[in-house]
């Protein structure tokens, strides 16, 4: 009997191919847009997450701010602050500390002159904290820092500018007026925004201070927490210790600011989640419109085929069979439409859309398909019921 109903339903759909195809197109677009838009939302969230994790999720950046009260002069961050953080015994969440000075200088190699995005002076701990890995050569060591050796690690972009295809390791470059020996080249991280993290020269802190900035303050202190979960604890420790060294009683008047990558990550994630939900809502509406299209077409079909329904009833078609036939038709419309929509969505997700590589959420495929089929059943049940309820005598008289 089910097979019979399926045959009748297919016959009914085939009777009006253009109409069936257009109705299916409505569902197709709905399902495909749900899958695709959610994939785009998800893709952008994944992209943001990746770029932020690349910076290191358990790192904290301490930078100085001008004090709120004009009465107290803003105390800059110093190497002593960093040492206080590093040597604090009551702050187990702090794993490593790297003071950072940043400056700019022109680099010379042979007759090639290039200005890297930034020249960074720091401790070796910086590399791990900032999630910088070497591709060739090695990092500079604590020994290099203690002896103020003139060694440097180049970012991949800087290395490319100065050396092109040549291996920079062991070569000498001139930064400002100071000769440096290149000991390593970093892995490329890819640009995440306005500043290119690959366009950098990293050298031991005292060397950079000696050559460029002088032995005063540092620009930032990079702190690495033991793990991503310990960042909040580490942040509290840093805040407490620095308030102590800066002799500030009121935390509201702190002359430094601590920002963490994870707080940035959370903020960005909630933004992209809103974005995804919005896209999903738009797509869901188009799916609903597709469902209403099914109802509309099925109502037309029932009206158009009232006489046929009458004939079938006169021949002894039970109500359930008539109901089943029309329900099957609407469900077939939605199943076929949804199937093609899934296909279209999956194919579409292979192309990057407005610069975002869509990442398909498997649940959205199942969900969109399931909802579309349910919509077919739900929106088809009203016209199907109307068909099944027709009295044969009225249906036969219908012209």
């Amino acid at each position: 009997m089910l097979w019979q109903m399926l045959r009748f339903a297919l016959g009914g759909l085939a009777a009006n191919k253009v109409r069936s195809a257009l109705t299916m197109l409505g569902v197709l677009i709905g399902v495909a847009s749900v899958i695709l838009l959610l994939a785009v939302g998800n893709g952008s969230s994944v992209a943001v997450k990746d770029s932020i994790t690349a910076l290191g999720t358990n790192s904290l950046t301490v930078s100085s701010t001008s004090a709120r009260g004009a009465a107290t002069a803003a105390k800059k961050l110093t190497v002593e602050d960093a040492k206080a953080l590093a040597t604090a015994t009551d702050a187990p969440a702090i794993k490593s500390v790297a003071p950072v000075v940043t400056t700019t200088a022109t680099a010379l190699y042979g007759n090639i002159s290039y200005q890297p995005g930034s020249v960074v002076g720091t401790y070796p701990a910086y590399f791990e904290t900032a999630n910088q890995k070497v591709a060739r050569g090695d990092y500079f060591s604590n020994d290099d820092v203690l002896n103020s050796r003139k060694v440097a690690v180049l970012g991949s972009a800087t290395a490319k500018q100065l050396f092109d295809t040549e291996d920079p390791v062991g070569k000498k470059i001139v930064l400002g007026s100071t000769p440096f020996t290149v000991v390593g080249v970093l892995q490329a991280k890819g640009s995440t925004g306005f500043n290119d993290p690959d366009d950098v020269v990293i050298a031991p802190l005292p060397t950079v201070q000696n050559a460029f900035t002088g032995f005063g303050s540092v620009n930032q202190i990079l702190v690495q927490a033991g793990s991503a979960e310990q960042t909040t604890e580490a942040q509290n420790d840093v805040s407490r210790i620095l308030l102590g060294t800066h002799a500030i009683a009121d935390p509201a008047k702190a002359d430094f600011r601590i920002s963490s990558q994870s707080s940035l990550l959370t903020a960005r994630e909630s933004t992209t989640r809103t974005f995804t939900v919005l896209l999903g809502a738009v797509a869901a509406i188009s799916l609903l419109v597709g469902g209403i299209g099914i109802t509309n077409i099925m109502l037309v079909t029932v009206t158009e085929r009232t006489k046929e329904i009458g004939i079938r009833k006169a021949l002894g078609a039970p109500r359930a069979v008539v109901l089943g036939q029309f329900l099957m038709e609407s469900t077939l419309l939605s199943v076929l439409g949804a199937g093609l929509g899934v296909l279209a969505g999956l194919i579409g997700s292979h192309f990057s859309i407005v610069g975002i590589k869509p990442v398909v959420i498997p649940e959205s495929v199942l969900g969109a398909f399931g909802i579309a089929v349910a919509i077919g059943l739900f929106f088809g049940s009203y016209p199907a019921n109307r068909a099944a309820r027709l009295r044969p005598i009225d249906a036969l008289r219908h012209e």
Partner: protein
Amino acid sequence: MTAQKPPAGARPPVIQIRQVIKSYGHGDAVVHALRGPSAPGGGEPLGVSLDIAEGDYVAVMGSSGSGKSTLMNILGCLDVPTSGRYLLDGIDVGHLDEGQLSLVRNRKIGFVFQSFNLVPRTTALAQVELPLAYAGVRAAERRRRALAALSLVGLAERAGHKPNQLSGGQQQRVAVARALVTAPAMLLADEPTGNLDSHSTEEVLSIIDGLNAAGRTVVLITHEDEVARHAKRVIRLMDGAIVSDVRQAEVDGPPPALGVEVGV
């Protein structure tokens, strides 16, 4: 006609209608489509009563508005009477629900309509298989019986044709095949020749004659005397009541027009 058929009267009539009234509207606006004779004195309608024996060939005649279509709808279980009893093949149809009525229509009645009423876009074979499909007959069996019914009306070679590829006469013959494929207790034909030319009319009527000669009960609704000549019994309706009931041939005998070449 089967050899061991019991004598007439031993078996109950296929159709027994007792005091059936069909009325529309309420109160003063009530209209009786079927009323039967009025009670003496009072004027209350008594309802139509009618027996049709197995193997009979009845023509119901009357002008439009006489109630013959209403009678046909009630006989065909497409409509229920306002009051009165209707026994079809011994079953009291009045007490059946929608589902049981569709079962009765499927098993006991074969319809032939004036406007053919074939299902569009469906081959002749599938048309004839349709009632069997609703009866739950298996596919192979369905096909065999449908082909047999089609060859009985002389359309075996047109099994694959759709309604729009058949002439009116052929369409009506497909409809006859569809009506008889379930071996129903009664063939109910509502003006089966109303839309046909005289040649097709003779074709269809001779098929129906043949079916009756083979023992099938036929009720035929018509307003043409030419058609009514084929029947063994002619009932005339007027204003919802039977006004004459004439027997033209014996129930057990062959239909009067069988094999007789009728002048066109």
